[in-house]
């Protein structure tokens, strides 16, 4: 089993005023999906949700607001799962609520350095 990081990309929508029911549905969708992975014993770390504010330090020491060139590329959160292969890991992202709201899920392998 290897560990993989799932990165959730989504686009911020400042005009979104969710109703209590929408909020509740969203929370439930995420928790159901995450619990599904947890139930298979493959959820290593539930990760964190990230805000939409950010700053970036560049090589020349300059600092700019916002970490990104492209709004759609914003990482809104991450978590860590374990799987036998990256193919299996990407299959775990099936049903992730980020996908149903126009976002996407990126899976990356976490490198392990033995004998260090």
């Amino acid at each position, binding site marked *: 089993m290897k560990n993989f990081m799932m990165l959730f990309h989504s686009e911020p929508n400042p005009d979104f005023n*969710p*109703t*209590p029911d929408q*909020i509740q549905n969203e929370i*439930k969708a995420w*928790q159901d999906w995450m619990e599904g992975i947890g139930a298979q014993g493959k959820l290593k770390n539930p990760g964190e*949700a990230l805000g939409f504010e950010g700053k970036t330090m560049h090589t020349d020491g300059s600092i700019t607001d916002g970490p990104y060139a492209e709004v759609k590329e914003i990482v809104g959160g991450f978590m860590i799962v374990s799987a036998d292969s990256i193919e299996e890991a990407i299959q775990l992202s099936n049903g992730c609520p980020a996908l149903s709201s126009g976002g996407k899920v990126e899976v990356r392998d976490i490198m392990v350095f033995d004998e260090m």
Partner: protein
Amino acid sequence: MDDEQLSEIFKSEYSNLIAVLSNYYGLTDLQLAEDIVSDTFLKAMKSWSHKGIPKFPKAWLRKVAQNLLNEHHRRKKIYDEKITPEIRAKNHQINFIEITDKIIEDSQLQMIFVLCDPDLNRESQLCLALRILCGFSIEEIARALLSNKETINKKIYRAKKVIKERDRIETNLTSDQYISRLDNVLRVIYLIFNEGYYSSVDEENIRHEICWEAMRLGLFLSEQKKFPKQKIYALIALMCFHTSRIDARTSGENGDLLYQEQDKRKWNKNLIQKGSKYLNLSAVGNVVTKYHLEAAIAYWHTKETKEKWNNILQLYNKLLTIEYSPIIAMNRTYALAQANSIDEAIQEAHKLELKDNHHYFCLLAELYRMHNNINKEIEYLNKAIEFANKKNEKELINDRLEKARR
């Protein structure tokens, strides 16, 4: 924590937080208060999705809302100091304290009185109260008031503007001011309730929720020491009696069932008892308001005794002397038919001459039906159809026409 509790928390904290932001921290800008609360909810949605629901969700929401307000003031200060130094805004000295239930309760009370501003028209008060006090979404309000999102948005926008133009929210109403505004507040609660009870929207849960919210506000007011209680109790009694019939009323396959068509076993006995309790409490002293009379009428409607209709008739007579309305006059005429005679009621009904009201023609048709005069019944039902403007009302009248022709 189950889903229902969670939804409940969001709904109640919506109005709690707006009340606290506006009253305790002095925001007259309701839009800003709403934006902060929306942001708070968005943060909760993201964070709770990942990390699960915190142990104390209310405290979490309150803390985040405070932080967001703090952030807003920090940015505003930069704007004020660097960009408009000459207009230096009033020095907002804000002390952040723990938001307790006591602060919330005081703020809620204040908010009710601010929103029931006599300068706002009825419709705006109603929309604003449903949004800010009861936490309904714009879509839900539009559905309940048979309107559309744009219209409701405009109404709320204008109402907020009126409140914003006040220099600040009046945080220290004197007890006289409270008492003099109480009538208006009760009227708004009564309107909220009627909207839930009589609206022709199919969605039962919205309608029921609106009724329960009106009752919650009524009970909340009745717990406040500063008010004379009789009127409040009378309004609560009225709402209890009506609500006791709401399940029986909405159980028809084609829209709402009329009083005489309802299955009396479906009436909620518990609520009838509560209503009686509050009606007794309201009778202390010598204040008689229209809520007292309407509650008493509703009480007699839950009974099946000989003196029922005669009592209802007397109560309608008194109600007409307090406040004339065509609806009350028509209801009185129907009571007259039941208590005295149908002939007398028909005579009285013709005197009313409400020439463009379809309810009026329905009443005449009903009286002639009771009199076994089918031709006249059909004649008036046809007239009623002419003046009915809602689809479901036309359908109801059509049903009656079909029955009459059989």
